[in-house]
């Protein structure tokens, strides 16, 4: 950074735009507050005092317009799948999806004979992070969010997101 070094004492920090935007985005993974089944209980527990998701800047938002991350926590029934898809479409770019638990990953316990269950939410929306478990513990969800942070930090901001 040569010429500008030490010109403004310590009040100015020089970085690239990519890094700045990615840093701020990854530090505020606001997730969409909705749960579909038992996995949602673990998600709530992750958000509550003991695991405290907010220390990672992740807090629940009740509107898709304000959310950056959709955590699909639970069984995606075919009836709900149409709604999940619409809610995903209503979220503003850049947006990410975490598929939490076996149900959202692959249909889980309903993968056979589950006449009403979608076998994996990735059939209708693109998924960034898969978290295994039935249900995954809050620690697993936190790890998923941290992986997502890493993914966000490595992304060129102005490039178009591929679907």
């Amino acid at each position, binding site marked *: 950074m040569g010429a500008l070094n030490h010109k403004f004492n310590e009040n100015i920090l020089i970085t690239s735009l990519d890094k700045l935007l990615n840093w701020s985005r990854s530090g505020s993974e606001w997730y969409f507050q909705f749960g579909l089944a038992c996995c949602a209980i673990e998600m709530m527990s992750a958000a509550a005092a003991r695991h405290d998701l907010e220390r990672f800047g992740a807090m629940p938002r009740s509107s898709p317009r304000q959310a950056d991350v959709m955590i699909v926590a639970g069984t995606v029934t075919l009836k709900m799948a*149409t709604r999940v898809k619409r809610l995903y479409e209503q979220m503003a770019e850049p947006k990410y999806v975490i598929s939490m638990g076996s149900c959202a990953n*692959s249909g889980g316990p309903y993968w056979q004979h589950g006449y009403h269950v*979608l076998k*994996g939410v990735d059939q209708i929306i693109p998924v960034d992070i898969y978290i295994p478990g039935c249900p995954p513990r809050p620690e697993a969800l936190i790890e998923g969010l941290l992986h997502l942070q890493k993914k966000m930090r490595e992304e060129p901001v102005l490039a178009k997101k591929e679907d």
Partner: protein
Amino acid sequence: MTEQEIYADLSKKFGDKVIEFMEEGTLNPTVVVDAAAIAKIVTYLKDDERFQFDSLMNLAGHDGDVEADLSVIYHLVSTELKHYITLKVFTSRVEPKVASVAVIYRTANWHEREAFDLYGINFEGHPDLKRILLEDDWEGYPLRKDYVPAEFYRGMRIEKVK
């Protein structure tokens, strides 16, 4: 009052509309009655001083076997007199028709819609008989033993490709 006594009284009053009394092989002693007469019988049980069945605990559809008829089971309780009775009706698989009790017990409204949704049993006289759990455009009645799942629902594959 015991179930046996209630059965005796019902068959005296309703004759051949009360078909049989099942004690063995069931969890609760059950009175099997005629599907078209169920509303009348239930009204009688509710209004009569000696029975006072003021609450319908549960109403459930049932399909035991592809060959057999569908059935509906009613669990009544009297919170006043503290006695119970289980009623059961059978109806044909091809044209399942049962008289609705939704106007007698409000509980039955959603329960009957559920039995309609999953077993396709038509409750005659129900004020608003439509699907309650599945989408309106769903085809078939999934809890029936002869149900074959469709391949797709609104473009989403239902069974996983092996």
